[in-house]
């Protein structure tokens, strides 16, 4: 079936290019994996179109048995519904574009590239398994699979210590969140007796009042499950507290950042919320937590993004911030809006990353914006697509982000709860900052005097067509995906489009209510965005000295932001270093001295007492005879006394 081909073709590409890459050569490996991806993209698009316009019925494609132990059942199967099909179509399309782009980007790399393409395809496969999962175990398989691919790709340049460190950090931080995800899966099974999605969803109503004791309190099981799953989502989607791996992940090649750390993998957490919407809808407290965390992340990451100087890190924090928006939407119950923003974001953020990759490519690997400037004449095409991406990100009219970000803020505004209001305020503030840092990036990179070294500047060139064509396609997406998909995803026909793959609880009318918000609220994000652009213009074009003055005047604030709120330093001080110290202590003190002290002590006791015993053997017959005599007397007396 077409759908299965879409999922498994990347695996085939990955295995062929990975195992035989050295034998068949880089070109052949690249071609194989791209062909498999193209096939997957075509199949993915057909499967999507079939479902939306072709009249195909949602269902499940069974593959094989996986877990079957007692009542614990989890088969390999592909879920075919709108939510999955949307994700499959997006993932395969973006992944294909990035595969093609990588041919140009990785051309000058010192390593053979078959490994890179194998990893990219492996990632795509895992991501597709994640989005098509029909049970939580398979979802977790994809979840960890994308984590593995992310690890491999962040650490792709394995001779760089910073890349290795970032790769490990990404995996370990994700695993911390995954721990809670696994417990969430276990608890789901404990409560529902199944981890298959349809069974869980069908059983939600009958478990509404189940309770679970934790910390000596009674909580509703569904709330506990919701929170556990959300903690899992926080790790993968880099939400505040568990976000520290994402900026470091920029150590990987830029196409990786575009595919994994912008368009697809990091959105897995949002997808999880949408996928589990029947459960989340029954967990109002968990939803409020989602909103608060998402809103805080949106604002926090945006503030940090304003001060970073590494072009990729700015975009990384921007991703973090946009993911926060998606969680706001999911948390207020507008999962459709979250997925809508997920899709538009995939286009414009991949575009921004690949555009910045094109800049880095042109600058011979330089990523520091302080060493750029004035590039727009030399790489006008890249300049243009970066504008498109930024306009879409800032949410200015007709561009994709305008429709989706607006919808999020409207949903937050109309939801009414205190958490939602907090989400709205943070979202509006973040919209301002988003526009500011986006144009700061544009101005610092492309405008003003060039600050690059002469030999780098002499080398600046526009990227080859293999890179610019994917940029063009993504630009189209960044412009039209908002306009084009708005009506389908969140327009009045949404129930027909989603066909129950996302569930809104009975009282949840966010999608209707957001149509009725006042016009001022609707235009607020645009106004904030324009203000941000104006401020960026003022600071980086009109008065280029202003940023330095501000940084000096508000030095503590500036340092606080520049150092990303000191999260890394904090974690290092309270987890990493004490952890290693404890590890050494347990090993060298507890294990080697205390525990082994007992057997070693017994052993030396035995040796010593035998040494003492040896002294008794004097060799003197008289002493022996005397000892025997005493012994005999003692024995006799005992015998007589006890008789």
């Amino acid at each position, binding site marked *: 079936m077409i759908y299965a081909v879409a999922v498994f073709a990347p695996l085939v590409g990955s295995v062929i290019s990975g195992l035989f890459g050295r034998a068949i050569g880089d070109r052949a490996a690249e071609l194989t994996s791209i062909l498999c991806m193209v096939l997957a993209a075509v199949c993915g698009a057909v499967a999507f179109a079939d479902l939306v316009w072709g009249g195909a019925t949602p269902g499940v494609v069974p593959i094989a048995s996986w877990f079957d132990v007692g009542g614990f059942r989890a088969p390999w199967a592909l879920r075919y519904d709108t939510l999955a099909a949307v994700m499959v179509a997006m993932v395969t399309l973006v992944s294909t574009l990035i595969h093609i782009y990588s041919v140009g980007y990785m051309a000058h790399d010192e390593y053979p590239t078959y490994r890179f393409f194998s990893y990219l395809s492996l990632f795509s496969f895992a991501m597709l398994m994640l989005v098509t999962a029909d049970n939580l175990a398979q979802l977790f398989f994809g979840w960890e699979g994308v984590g593995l691919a992310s690890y491999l790709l962040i650490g792709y340049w394995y001779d760089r210590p910073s890349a290795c460190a970032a790769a490990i950090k990404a995996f370990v931080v994700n695993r911390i969140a995954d*721990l809670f995800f696994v417990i969430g899966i276990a608890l789901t099974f404990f409560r529902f007796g199944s981890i298959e999605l349809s069974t869980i969803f069908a059983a939600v109503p009958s478990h509404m009042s189940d309770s679970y004791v934790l910390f000596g309190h009674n909580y509703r099981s569904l709330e506990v499950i919701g929170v556990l799953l959300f903690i899992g989502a926080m790790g993968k989607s880099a939400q505040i507290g568990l976000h520290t791996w994402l900026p470091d992940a920029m150590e990987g090649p830029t196409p990786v950042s575009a595919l994994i750390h912008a368009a697809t993998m990091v959105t897995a957490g949002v997808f999880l919320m949408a996928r589990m919407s029947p459960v989340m809808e029954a967990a109002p407290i968990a939803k409020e937590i989602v909103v608060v965390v998402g809103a805080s992340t949106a604002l926090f990451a945006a503030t940090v993004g304003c001060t970073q100087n590494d072009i990729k890190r700015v975009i990384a924090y921007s991703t973090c911030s946009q993911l926060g928006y998606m969680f706001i939407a999911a948390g207020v119950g507008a999962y459709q809006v979250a997925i809508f923003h997920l899709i538009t974001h995939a286009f414009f953020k991949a575009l921004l990353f690949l555009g910045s990759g094109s800049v880095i490519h042109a600058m011979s690997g330089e990523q520091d914006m302080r060493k750029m400037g004035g590039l727009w004449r030399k790489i006008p095409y890249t300049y243009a697509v970066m504008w498109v991406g930024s306009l879409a990100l800032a949410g200015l009219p007709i561009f994709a982000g305008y429709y989706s970000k607006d919808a999020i803020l409207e949903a937050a505004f109309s939801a009414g709860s205190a958490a939602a209001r907090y989400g709205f305020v943070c979202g509006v503030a973040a919209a301002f900052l988003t526009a500011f840092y986006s144009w700061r990036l544009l101005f610092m990179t492309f405008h003003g005097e060039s600050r690059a070294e002469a030999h780098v500047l002499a080398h600046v060139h526009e990227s080859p067509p293999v890179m610019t064509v994917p940029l063009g396609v993504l630009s189209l997406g960044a412009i039209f995906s908002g306009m084009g998909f708005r009506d389908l995803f969140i327009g009045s026909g949404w129930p027909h489009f989603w066909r129950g793959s996302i569930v809104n609880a009975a009282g949840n009318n966010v999608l209707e209510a957001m149509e009725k918000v006042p016009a001022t609220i609707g235009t607020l994000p645009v106004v904030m965005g324009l203000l941000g652009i104006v401020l960026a213009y003022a600071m980086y074009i009109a008065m280029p000295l202003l940023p330095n003055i501000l940084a000096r005047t508000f030095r503590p604030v500036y340092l606080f932001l520049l150092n990303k709120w000191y999260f890394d330093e904090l974690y290092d001080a309270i987890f990493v270093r004490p952890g290693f110290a404890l590890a050494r202590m347990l090993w060298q003190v507890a*294990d080697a001295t205390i525990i082994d002290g007992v*057997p070693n002590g017994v052993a030396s006791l035995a040796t010593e007492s035998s040494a003492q015993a040896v002294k008794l053997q004097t060799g003197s017959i008289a002493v022996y005879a005397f000892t025997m005599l005493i012994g005999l007397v003692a024995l006799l007396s005992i015998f007589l006394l006890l008789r």
Partner: protein
Amino acid sequence: MNAAGFPILSLITFLPLAGAAIMLLVRGDEATVAANARWSALWTSLIVLALSLILWWDFDPAQPGFQFVETVDWLPSLGVKYRMGVDGISILFVLLSTFLTPICILASWESVKTHVREYMLTFLVMETMMVGMFAATDFIIFYIFYEGVLIPMYLIIGVWGGPRRVYAAFKFFLFTLTGSVLMMLALLAMWYTAGTTDITELLHASFPAHMQYWLFLAFLASFAVKVPMWPVHTWLPDAHVEAPTAGSVILAGVLLKMGAYGFLRFSVPMLPQASAYFAPLIYALSVVAVIYTSLVALAQTDMKKLIAYSSVAHMGLVTIGIFSFNIEGITGALVQMLSHGVVSAALFLVVGVVYDRIHSREIARYGGLADRMPRYALVFMIFMLASSGLPGTSGFVGELLVAVGALRVNFWLALLSSTGMILGIAYMLYLYRRVIFGRLTKLDLRNIADLSPREVFVFAPLVVLTLWMGVYPSSFTRFFDASAGLLVESHRAALIAPEVRSRTASGVKLPAAARLAAIAKDESVHE
């Protein structure tokens, strides 16, 4: 008599001894004897493996009881019989033993240069002991094999081991023997009370509760050392570090399973009340093992020690699974045992590969091997990930099932025991980074050779098995289903019956045991 039509279990058990006898007959110069010993050991073990596959085909997983049963009078005056048989719990461990032995022999092909014949002979004797131990259904026979395993292992560490081999061999022997003596007392007590040594009958015998507590503690002393559970685990790192590669493979792959197998075969089914009573103690020790030894693994500078400590952590998960007394937990424990048997064995082989080339286990001695050894890097990666429980590998199946089983008992038990997920990936990635990644700067690593065809041949079945168990575990769990289900059911039934009884007539209390359990409960609260 049995499904195969001939005494297949005895054949599998004792055929290695026949191979060993043939080896003894060979005469000639040293090189001839060595070559001859290698080939006859390999062929013997391969034939045994082929025979044991018959078990795989002919075993009926729907039957929970023992199959391929053999009974021969042995000591008629005492009622002791030679009884063999396998059920769903033991069959795969017989297969694991017969599967790992040829791999060990292949892995020692070039690395063992002294006393080759004696080495190969010892391995075949060990195979007999291992298979016999898992196939015995009379506990006298079981005990003989159980203790017998110690001797070849002791010799392998003590004769073919590293510089501190004598210390390690003694430590290994003393730790495990101390526990075993207590187990023997328990066995004698059970024999005296129940009047039989037949395990199948003992499974249905019920011992008075106060007796169960003492029996349980005696068994615990023996099995805990073998597993090994914290805090009697310290013999393991030393034994692994000094043992030759193949010795570590068998030690990690099969010998560590003996303790857990003992829990499943004796403690849980025969002493249900005591098992339930002491379960909190086991939980506490296991959780400590998971966290403690994972942390210790993080600090290691010796590759083998690191993997040895990780073994203790993984076995902690096994004991939690067993003592969760539910089908998910017990199946998870069994899968985890199998998975660990394959994966940790493979990891020791992985270390052995570079040890054979550079003769160092120091992590700092390596770095940047990915450049020169891409195939090796891939194999290492697969087992590293399997060890840390990545879905799609065997490690995940056991880990998830144990988490599910543990959650049925207690939320914190599940959460704390799963912290191994985090620490496990941390120490493995850290190890991998230091050995495989980075820039290749050390001069003698420049010309290090990638896996030879022989080594690929050694690793290939292990890789296949790891992925097979990860992607399609049903092939393995189908064996467990009936037997583990029966175990859970009879455990539950046994607990319900005496509870009613003890309410009417108050049972004898054991102050010491009660205190211990109270401490255990206390600990689990504090964590």
